[in-house]
């Protein structure tokens, strides 16, 4: 018997369900866009304007009460000009300085000892204490690096003279995202994650609802085949997922000004493989879950690893071997790579066909698994 018997009927009915519940459909469509906007504006991994206090004992010894002498002032100005530090206050004691740090008002405290200016003028090594709040590793890392660079720069200037060229001049050039804009890096990956929600959840719900209402029992007594039933069910959500993908790309491109270096139609084409896997995973979940609440829990078990192991947040190269291995089983891993590849690196089919193929293969495997479970559930 034709394994696709009943596909049309299922697709017809499922589309009616989706269209009938307009509010749910609208919410499902708008939610990822909303999240894209919120996260797009909120996520900025570039460390800027870190609140900094200065305790200048050397300046106090100069007697004017402000950070008075030119040696410390030059250094403080350089800190302020770096864009990393924002000096918001000068304090006059260790207690005051510590209080600012503990209260979290200051992330960085810079302390010049009394002998700072004197040692510098004598040509001796002058020490500066830079206290860094380690509770945010990104801020701490950046503060240490930048303050070190400023000190090194200042030292070289003093040794070599004001306008002398440095012996070695490193000229780093960041490819693909020259301005290091956070949206450029985050949004292409985020698209992959946001798509999981729409596709996996909606399909999982649609089958579980039929279980809860008892209509599945009726379908089983008809000639509808498991494969046709599943494919018919995912059809409208596939269309929804595809429009979501396009909407997310448009938002990313026009609202957040993230340029697409590669071929956008190719990206959409490759993303169909990803949508397919997620939809089949939704179906697989629904064969297991008895209620919508259970379906949400199971879907979460799929979605959370997608967020953490796909390389969207944490680079996969730094993961322990076991998680690195696991990340190969997560569809989002491939989609994050495809999305960043096309959008940021301008990669084409030649570079990304394997990712798409793996997604397609995963989708077929999950679909067959689900079909088997379906058959067993029926009998």
């Amino acid at each position, binding site marked *: *018997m034709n394994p696709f*018997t*009943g596909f*049309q*009927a299922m697709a*017809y*009915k499922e589309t*009616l*369900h989706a269209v*009938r*519940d307009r509010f749910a459909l609208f919410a499902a469509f708008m939610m990822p866009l909303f999240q894209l906007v919120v996260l797009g504006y909120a996520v900025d991994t570039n460390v800027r304007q870190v609140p900094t206090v200065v305790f200048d004992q050397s300046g106090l010894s100069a007697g004017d009460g402000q950070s008075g002498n030119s040696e410390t002032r030059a250094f403080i100005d350089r800190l302020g000009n770096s864009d990393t530090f924002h000096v918001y206050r000068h304090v006059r004691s260790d207690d005051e300085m510590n209080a600012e740090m503990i209260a979290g008002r200051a992330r960085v405290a810079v302390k010049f000892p009394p002998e700072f200016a004197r040692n510098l003028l004598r040509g001796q090594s002058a020490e500066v204490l830079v206290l860094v709040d380690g509770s945010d590793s990104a801020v701490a890392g950046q503060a240490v690096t930048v303050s070190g660079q400023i000190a090194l720069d200042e030292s070289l200037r003093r040794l070599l003279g004001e306008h002398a060229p440095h012996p070695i001049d490193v000229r780093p050039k960041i490819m693909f995202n020259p301005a290091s804009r956070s949206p450029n890096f985050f949004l292409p990956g985020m698209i992959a994650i946001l798509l999981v929600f729409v596709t996996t959840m909606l399909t999982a719900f649609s089958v579980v609802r039929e279980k809860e*209402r*008892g*209509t599945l*029992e*009726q*379908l*089983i*007594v*008809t*000639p*509808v085949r498991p494969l046709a039933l599943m494919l018919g069910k995912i059809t409208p959500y596939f269309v929804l997922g595809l429009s979501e993908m396009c909407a997310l790309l448009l938002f990313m491109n026009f609202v957040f000004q993230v340029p697409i270096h590669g071929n956008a139609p190719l990206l959409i084409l490759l993303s169909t493989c990803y949508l397919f896997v997620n939809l089949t995973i939704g179906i697989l979940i629904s064969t297991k879950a008895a209620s919508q609440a259970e379906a949400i829990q199971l879907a979460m078990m799929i979605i959370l690893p997608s967020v953490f192991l796909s390389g969207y947040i944490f680079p996969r190269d730094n993961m322990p071997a076991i998680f690195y291995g696991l990340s190969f089983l997560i569809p989002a891993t491939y989609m994050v790579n495809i999305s960043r590849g096309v959008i940021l690196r301008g990669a084409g089919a030649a570079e990304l066909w394997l990712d798409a193929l793996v997604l397609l293969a995963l989708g077929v495997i999950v679909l067959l698994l689900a079909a088997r479970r379906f058959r067993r559930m*029926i*009998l």
Partner: protein
Amino acid sequence: MAAIIAENLVRRFDAFTAVDGISFTVQPGEIFGFLGPNGSGKTVTIKMLCGILPLTGGAAQVDGIDVVRDPDSVRARIGYMSQKFALYDDLTVRENLRFYGMVYDIRGAALARRMEEIIARIHLEPFLGRQAGKLSGGWKQRLALGCALLHEPHILFLDEPTAGIDPVARRQLWDLLFEFSGHGMTFFVTTHYMDEAERCSHLAYIYYGRLIADGTPLSLRQLPDMTPAGTYRLEITTSEVTVALRRVRALPAVRSATIFGRSIHALIDATCPQQELARAIGDDGIRIEDLRPLAPSLEDVFVELSERRQRELAA
């Protein structure tokens, strides 16, 4: 050719035997009432006959097709309607019908013609655009029947189709069943209502996996041993049924006694004549309004058969 032939059907779930070697034959055009207590194996039997539950043993033919060898063809030729009215609440009456038509691969003009036919037969015209969830119970049930009949099945299985439906809707559904049955369609119905059982042309009674009665309603009521030798049945109408029942049950000669409205149906040893019984009940203030001999009802028959089977099992 028989519509349904079940031969020694067995279904086990691990150690539990849900259906234990039952056999019966249903002729085309019959309304076959399949009765039995909850959990006695009715639904399991239906599922096996519909080709969605494999048999552990035995054989079954539905519409001339072996359900083990070709369950797909069986599913295409039968209709199934459960007590839950498996309709899509958010789809309209017309959409529900169209969906079930498409499921059975009816297309285009044929589908439109078939839908018109069913709509006219079941009188669904006023509700075509209404969502199924907004229909009353009786109309949901009619729509479910329409959906199950759209592909012109030869045999329709109805699993407690009237559970929770008001008496008028129940009567209307049965009128529809008779009408379709008159056109040669076979119905396989499970029910707990004795008045529905009375309307079937053929009854079978399953009790914990075993078939313990099979025949027409009349032949079952006339089973010789329903009123065992040396006993008689009596209907006792009285002003105080509950008190009277207690007294009747206390008499050693009374085998069983049940209340029906304002009267008691009792099975009594012949050693205890009516007058003695009347004296035992009707002293201080309890008035006996009527005493009359009683033929066993279908319910009596099923209760008697069940209890007998229970005693066999216990022995």
